[in-house]
């Protein structure tokens, strides 16, 4: 949720009162715990991760250097490419759902009510642990006893194996996570809509512009920067899909939900191919880095029209 703020090029202002010397010693004391944590659990593992990606380590024996073999294997690994494809499919589905639903809801709230209770209730699913929501939806979507299938049957439709059919599994997982995240997205977009000056709407209403037209002609264009921010945040977030897949489908049916995070996890902890998993993880870092870079460029291109 921070990427957007990075584009602001702020430099910390001069230290409090002007002093002749810097605050080196004091700063070190202030920073010590964080520096230790960063060195031990971010820098050191990053170096080790990069090293493991060049080895055949299997968690048990000593890692042996194999050069770029893992990367060569990765390029030829159909499951890796499949996992990227499946992840992309998921990202498009879930981000699409979140943003379309979030926009709609935010627009409705913006025009109808300022109720805090309503907003708090909408955000409840976001606070539910993802494991819990996955379990809950696994039950709601159950092929035999699930509530949703009762609903379908009572409407005269057929039972669906939402999580067991290769076609429906990924959309179902995407919907589960969209259920969790839409309330959050709605609040972000709603906050953005509050920034649009009320007079613009009043003027439009005087001109006889309908609510729907107002949404497409006023709200949406002025919301662009926040939409871009929400897009970045939910995109990066969605790439890291793990919990819902680990609980509901375990990558199946027939690899339909074997997303890249889950694939890495399986290689590392089910097949004990730590070296290969590290190579996969490092590749994901590069892919996400590239994606973030592209998005930041896009973000920069979408400054607010209100400023």
């Amino acid at each position: 949720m921070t990427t957007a703020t990075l584009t602001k090029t702020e430099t910390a202002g001069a230290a409090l009162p002007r002093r002749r010397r810097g605050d080196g010693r004091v700063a070190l004391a202030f920073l010590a715990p964080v520096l230790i944590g960063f060195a031990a659990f971010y820098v050191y593992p990053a170096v080790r991760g990069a090293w493991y990606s060049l080895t055949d380590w299997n968690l048990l024996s000593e890692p042996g250097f194999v050069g770029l073999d893992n990367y060569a294997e990765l390029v030829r690994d159909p499951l890796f490419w499949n996992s990227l494809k499946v992840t992309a499919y998921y990202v498009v589905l879930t981000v699409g759902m979140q943003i379309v639903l979030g926009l709609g809801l935010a627009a409705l709230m913006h025009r109808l009510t300022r109720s805090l209770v309503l907003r708090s209730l909408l955000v409840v699913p976001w606070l539910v642990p993802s494991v819990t929501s996955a379990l809950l939806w696994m039950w709601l979507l159950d092929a035999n006893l699930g509530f949703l299938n009762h609903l379908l049957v009572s409407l005269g439709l057929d039972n669906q194996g939402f999580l067991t059919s290769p076609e429906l599994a990924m959309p179902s997982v995407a919907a589960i996570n969209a259920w969790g995240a839409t309330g959050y997205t709605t609040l972000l977009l709603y906050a953005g809509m509050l920034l649009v000056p009320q007079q613009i709407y009043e003027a439009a209403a005087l001109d006889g512009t309908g609510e729907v037209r107002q949404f497409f002609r006023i709200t949406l264009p002025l919301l662009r920067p926040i939409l871009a921010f929400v897009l970045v945040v939910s995109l990066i977030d969605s790439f890291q899909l793990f919990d819902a897949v680990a609980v509901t489908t375990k990558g199946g049916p027939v690899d339909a939900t074997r997303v890249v995070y889950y694939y890495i996890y399986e290689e590392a902890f089910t097949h004990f191919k730590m070296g290969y998993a590290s190579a996969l993880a490092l590749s994901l870092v590069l892919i996400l880095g590239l994606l973030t870079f592209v998005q930041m460029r896009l973000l920069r291109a979408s400054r607010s029209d209100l400023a």
Partner: protein
Amino acid sequence: MSAPVTVGRRRLRRLPAWICLILALGISLFPLYWMLRTAITPGPELPSDNAGLLPRHPTLINFERVLGLVSRDEARAAGGSGANLSFFLYLRNSVVYTGLITCAQTLFCAMAGYAFARLRFRGRDALFNVFVAALMVPPIFTLLPNFALVKQLGWLNTYQGLVAPSLLMTPFAVFFLRQFFLGIPRDVEQAAFIDGAGPWTIFWRVVLPMTKGPLFTLALTTAVWTWNDYLWPLLVAPGEDTRVLTAALGIFLKQSPNTSPDWTGLMAGSALSVVPVLLLVVFFGRRLVDSIQFSGMKG
């Protein structure tokens, strides 16, 4: 449209919009109701009693058995697999895990955020940029070696192994607080400095009390994330004594027969994991909503 629309007609025109909004609220909350409804249904009756809004014979037995309050035979009779469950313990572990990380991380990151925002030292901006870069790295990349490290230290299934990677910092928290400290006016700090207060005194006595709001916001976010965390606790601390709620739910599902999962028990366990969330909304609803909306404004 020449004549002004009357209030009544306006209300009526807005009725479909209200219906959409209420429908959305229903979709948000109904699954949670269904979770509770299933949790109070007797396990053996679930195959025949799973459609009505209320179970025919509401019971608390599922909660009792996931909390480990009934004997193994009684639990099995109520639909359990006979596996040992003690959600009291997992609940405690979750509270300890979340509490430790939230308190320590917020404090340490506040100190660092303050240093980055206010103190002058060589390499400050370069160091800060390294932290910002670390924000972009997906956690799975450091998770694999961190798991290896915790394993080598012999810390699997211990609290120290569980909390180690996030106890001292996350780049996000440092970044977030530094931005906040940059935004607050310096006057008060300056006044304190003129009165002869050193950086420590200023930080503890002036800055921290002034920034209770953002600190609380960050702590809340950290607490929610930590409470929801699944993969890390599942990997390093699946043992009974250190198992947290989320991991316990995953393991519970795994132990449950694939063909007919113990849904009533699973939903009772799930309901327990949501209780803190609901408390949060009840007590801190406004602050929660404000902090999310605030991060939207920042964008």
